[in-house]
């Protein structure tokens, strides 16, 4: 059980990091896109 718990902690660390990385990349691209395509 301890093994499984340690793996679940690993999933927590990697999972949260992965979600943040993906959403931050999307956020930066959206910010860039908004600047580039700004309607005058």
């Amino acid at each position, binding site marked *: *059980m301890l093994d*499984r*718990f340690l*793996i*679940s*902690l*690993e*999933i*927590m660390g*990697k*999972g*949260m990091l*992965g*979600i*943040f*990385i*993906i*959403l*931050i*990349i*999307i*956020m930066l*691209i*959206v*910010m860039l*896109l*908004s600047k580039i*395509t*700004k*309607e005058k």
Partner: protein
Amino acid sequence: MDYLISGITSITWQEFFMYVIGALLIYLAICKDFEPALLLPMGFGAILVNLPASGVLDQTLEGIGKTNGIIEWLFHVGIEASEALPILLFIGIGAMIDFGPLLSNPKMFLFGAAAQFGIFFAICVATLLGFSLNDAASIGIIGAADGPTSILVSQILKSKYIGAIAVAAYSYMALVPIIQPAAIKLVTTKKERMIRMPYNPKSISKTTRILFPIIVTFIAGLVAPQSVSLVGFLMFGNLLRECNVLKSLSETAQNELANLITLLLGITISFSMRAEAFVNISTLLIMCIGLIAFIFDTIGGVLFAKLLNLFSKQKINPMIGAAGISAFPMSARVVQKMSLKEDPTNHLLMHAIGANVSGQIGSVVAGGIVLKLVSDLIH
């Protein structure tokens, strides 16, 4: 006369218990308006599949052989074989979502990530309670606050608790207006709940709106390929909406397609609510862990907002973090209602909606990442 009463005499207490569960779900759907589109078909289905020798399940009749049951067939074809029903539903959901409030305030993306914390916390709790890793991950996904994602992930991970997971996911989504205020109050002060946030939306070009679903699909697909079926179909639906040249398809996806799939999904999921699979102590544990997942989603989002406040000049009302879960638009409404309760002139709705739609993306990305991590680690 035996042939007339054989059905009645063969009812087990577990089946009777499932009739009560079915009746409870129907009651919650009709009288309490708790996610009626899903809970009502699930409740009725729970009764259908638990009738002795039910004709909606495959049966072997003496002298005739095997007969096919409609609900069992729907489950095998629509969920087990292809996960088609939950995935197709994402087209409708994508077509319904206006990402405008998020695109005009991209900072809200961060809350869509932070509020997925409950998923991973629940996975840890489930493993501590003795569930296998694939079952624990499936149970944790209840915290995505997203019914179709929960069904899809638990089906791909071949969890035997898919019925309990679906019931927990949809029940707690309906209970967001009760769960979230309590969790928010637990980790915020009145002063924090009164923080004002001016809303100055930036205009969003049509190009950005059209490119957004394509870019999200690319990024999520390249980083977490397992999320493509979820993110891809969600974003396909959104592209139908934003392209402005497929209005009738977009409307069909939002209405007829979403309604039809929802109708079938609820009754199909009831296949996993057969007494022998549902009535056990694990179901009770799953309901408890699901509740923990929702609470820690909320706490994760709120604490992340408080963390950002340590470094930013323009303070964020921490309640916005709680809206980063996928339950749309219930969560945004909860935040708006709570802010108005503290200060009747403090309107946070648009910020909360931005965080809430970000949660829609966050939850499907989380589903994909959990699938990838768990399959890698089990391997």
